[in-house]
C-alpha cells in the first residue's frame, strides 16, 4: 500500500521526477566511474605484472624495472645463485637495449629484449615457435615490429647495435632468424620490440663487458613465501633493488596518486549532488503536500508511517536514478579509459577503469544510501507538521 502510494506520488509530477532521476543517474554514473578509477589502475597493473606468475622483480638499486638505463652488473652469477634457492621455481633475466635494422632505404630502431628461454615472463607466443634453450640465432618479434620492418616467420635479418657517428659502422652485428611472433606483456601500444637470447642482446648494449641485466624476474614456488624470499634476496644482494608485486603496486600507486585523489574528490561531489537533489526535491514536494500529510495524521496514520513513506519516496527516486546511472557509468568509463590509455609509453595491458561487480555494487549502494539519507529531513518535516494548524492554513 505504502509502495503504491509512493509510486503514485512520483508519477504525479513526471517532468520533475524525470529530471531528478536524470540528475541522480549522472551522479551515480560519475560515482561508478570514480570507484572504478580509484581501484582499477592498481588491479590492472597487478594483473599485468602477475600475468606470467613471476612475483618478484630485481632491478638496479634505487630504480624500478625499466625506469632508467642503469643495469645490474654481473647478471650471470646472480641468476645462477638465485636458481640454487629451493623456494625459487624460476628466474628470468632480462636485458633491454635499442638495436637497429636496415629496411628498404632506411634504418629502423627497435627495442631488443634479451631473455633466457628457460625462464621468461616477458611475452606470450602468438604464432610460430618459441626460442629453444641455447638458441643464439633465433629472433622473436612483436606484431608492430613485424609490420614496420616487413618481417615474416622464417626470415633471416641483420640487426646491429649503435652506429659510429662518423663511419656509420655498426658496433655489433648479428644475423638472426625470425622464429615467431609474440605479444610483449609490458609493451606500449605499437611499440616495436624483438627478443633474442640473453647473451646475444647483451652484446648490443654499451656495457656488454659488465654482463648486464636490466631486470631479473623471480617466480617463487609458494605465494606465501614471496615476502620472505624477497627479504632473503635483498639481504644477500644489497646492491640490487628487490621488489615484490605488492611493493611495485605501492610505488605505482604513489606515482598515480593524482588520479586517486581526483577520483575521491569527484566521488564525494557526486554523492553531495545526489543528496542535494533528492533533499531539495523531496523538501519542496513535502512542502506542497503538508495538507495531505496532516489529513493522513488526522485519520490516524502514525508518524512513523509518514516518515517511512517519504523516505521510501527518496529511496525509489534514487533507485531509479541508480539503475539508469550505472549503465551510463559503464558506457562513460569505456570512453574515459580510451582517453587515459593514450598516455605515451603506457603498457597496452593497463586499464584505468576496470569494471567489476564489486565496484558496481559499491557505487550503487553508496548513491542509494545517500539518496535515502537525504530524504530524512523532508520526512521529519512531514511527520512533525501540527495537524490542526496545517489543516487551518490549508483551508485559508
Amino acid at each position, binding site marked *: 500500500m505504502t509502495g503504491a502510494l509512493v509510486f503514485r506520488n512520483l508519477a504525479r509530477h513526471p*517532468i*520533475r521526477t524525470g*529530471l*531528478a532521476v*536524470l*540528475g541522480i543517474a*549522472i*551522479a551515480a*554514473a*560519475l560515482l561508478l566511474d570514480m570507484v572504478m578509477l580509484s581501484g582499477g589502475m592498481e588491479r590492472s597493473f597487478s594483473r599485468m605484472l602477475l600475468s606470467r606468475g613471476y612475483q618478484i622483480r630485481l632491478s*638496479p*638499486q*634505487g630504480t624500478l624495472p625499466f625506469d632508467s638505463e*642503469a643495469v645490474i*652488473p654481473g647478471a650471470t652469477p646472480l641468476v645462477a645463485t638465485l636458481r640454487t634457492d629451493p623456494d625459487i621455481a624460476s628466474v628470468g633475466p632480462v636485458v633491454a637495449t635499442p638495436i637497429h635494422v636496415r629496411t628498404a632505404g632506411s634504418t629502423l630502431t627497435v627495442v631488443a629484449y634479451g631473455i633466457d628461454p628457460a625462464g621468461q615472463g616477458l611475452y606470450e607466443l602468438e604464432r610460430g615457435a618459441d626460442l629453444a634453450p641455447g638458441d643464439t640465432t633465433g629472433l622473436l618479434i612483436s606484431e608492430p615490429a613485424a609490420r614496420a620492418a616487413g618481417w615474416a616467420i622464417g626470415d633471416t635479418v641483420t640487426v646491429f647495435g*649503435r*652506429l*659510429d*657517428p*662518423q*663511419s*656509420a659502422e655498426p658496433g655489433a652485428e648479428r644475423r638472426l632468424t625470425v622464429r615467431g611472433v609474440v605479444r610483449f606483456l609490458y609493451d606500449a601500444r605499437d611499440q616495436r620490440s624483438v627478443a633474442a637470447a640473453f647473451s646475444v642482446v647483451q652484446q648490443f648494449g*654499451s656495457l656488454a663487458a659488465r654482463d648486464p641485466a636490466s631486470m631479473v624476474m623471480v617466480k617463487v614456488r609458494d605465494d606465501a613465501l614471496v615476502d620472505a624470499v624477497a627479504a632473503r634476496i635483498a639481504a644477500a644482494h*644489497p*646492491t*640490487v633493488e628487490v621488489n615484490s608485486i605488492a611493493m611495485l603496486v605501492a610505488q605505482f600507486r604513489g*606515482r598515480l*596518486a*593524482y588520479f586517486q585523489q581526483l577520483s575521491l574528490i*569527484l566521488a564525494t561531489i*557526486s554523492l553531495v*549532488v545526489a543528496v*542535494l*537533489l533528492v533533499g*531539495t*526535491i523531496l523538501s*519542496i514536494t513535502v*512542502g*506542497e503536500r503538508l495538507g495531505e500529510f496532516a489529513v493522513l495524521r488526522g485519520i490516524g496514520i502514525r508518524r512513523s508511517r509518514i516518515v517511512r513513506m517519504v523516505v521510501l519516496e527518496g529511496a525509489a527516486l534514487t533507485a531509479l536514478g541508480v539503475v539508469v546511472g550505472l549503465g551510463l557509468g559503464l558506457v*562513460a568509463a569505456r*570512453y*574515459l579509459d580510451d*582517453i*587515459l590509455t*593514450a*598516455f*605515451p609509453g603506457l603498457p597496452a595491458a593497463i586499464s584505468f577503469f576496470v569494471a567489476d561487480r564489486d565496484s558496481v555494487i559499491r557505487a550503487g549502494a553508496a548513491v542509494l544510501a545517500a539518496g535515502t539519507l537525504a530524504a530524512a529531513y523532508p520526512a521529519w518535516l512531514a511527520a512533525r507538521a501540527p495537524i490542526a494548524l496545517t489543516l487551518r492554513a490549508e483551508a485559508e
Partner: protein
Amino acid sequence: MLLVLLALLSADTLPPVPGVAIERRLAAHFSVAVGDTIAVTPEPGGAVRRFVVEAVYEPRPDPATALRNEYHIRFHLPDLADLLGHPDRIDRMGVAAVAGIAADSVAARLDQRAFGYRAFASDVIAAESSRTFAVVSRFHRAIGVIAIVASAVFLLCIMLLKVEERRLDAAVMRLIGISRATVVRAFVLEATLIAAVGSVLGVGLAALAGVLTNWGYQRRFDTTLVFSYLTPDIMALGVGLSLLLGIGAGLLAARRLVAANPLALWRRAA
C-alpha cells in the same frame, strides 16, 4: 713530521676536487651545504669519487618530473663522463641555429651529415614531451563535460521547482491582467539573479579549492609548480555557462507555467 709532509703533498700535488651543483631538495634531505665534499658512485658498490658542492640550485618547476620525486646533481660534462666510464660520450646536445634559419632544416641537415643520432627541432620535442599533458587535458575536458551536464540537469530541476512553487503568484498576476510576457520576464529575472549569485559563490569556491590544491600538492612534492590556475577565461566560461543554464532553465519553467490556465493554477496552488 710525516703528517705535515702529507698535508703539504696533498695541498701541492693532489689534483683539485671537481665541483658539482646539487638541487635544493637534495641538499635539504642530506643536510649538505656549499663547500661540503660529497662522495658519489655510479652504482652501488662501485668506485667512489669525491666532489665539492659548488652550488645549490632550485630546478625549474617541471610537471614531467615533479611527481617522480627524483633528486638531481649537475656535473661538469667531463667529470660525469669520467665517473661513468664513458669518455667522449653524450646522451644529447642542444644546438642553436643562426637567427633566421629554420630549426627543421638544420635538423634535417644534421641527420644527413652523420650517423648514430637523430636531430629534432625544439618544437618537435616539446610536442612529443607534452603528449602526457595533452592526455590529462582531454580527460579533464571529458570530466568537465560530465560536470556541466550534471549541473545543467540540477539547475533545470531546481528552477522548475522554484517556479512551480510560485504557481499562486503567477495565477494572481495573470488574473489581475498582467501579461504573460511580463510574468515570464519577472521569473527569468529572478532566475538570472539566482544564477548570478550562484556563479559568484561558485567562483569563490573554485578559488578556495585552487588555493587548497596548490598548497597541498606543493607541500607534498616540495615544488613551486602551480597545479591549479583559475584564469579569467575559466572564470568567464564558468559564470557564462551558469548564467546561460540558469536563465535557460528559468525561461523554460516560466513559459511552462504561463502556458497553463490561471484558474487551474490557482486551484492547484490552493
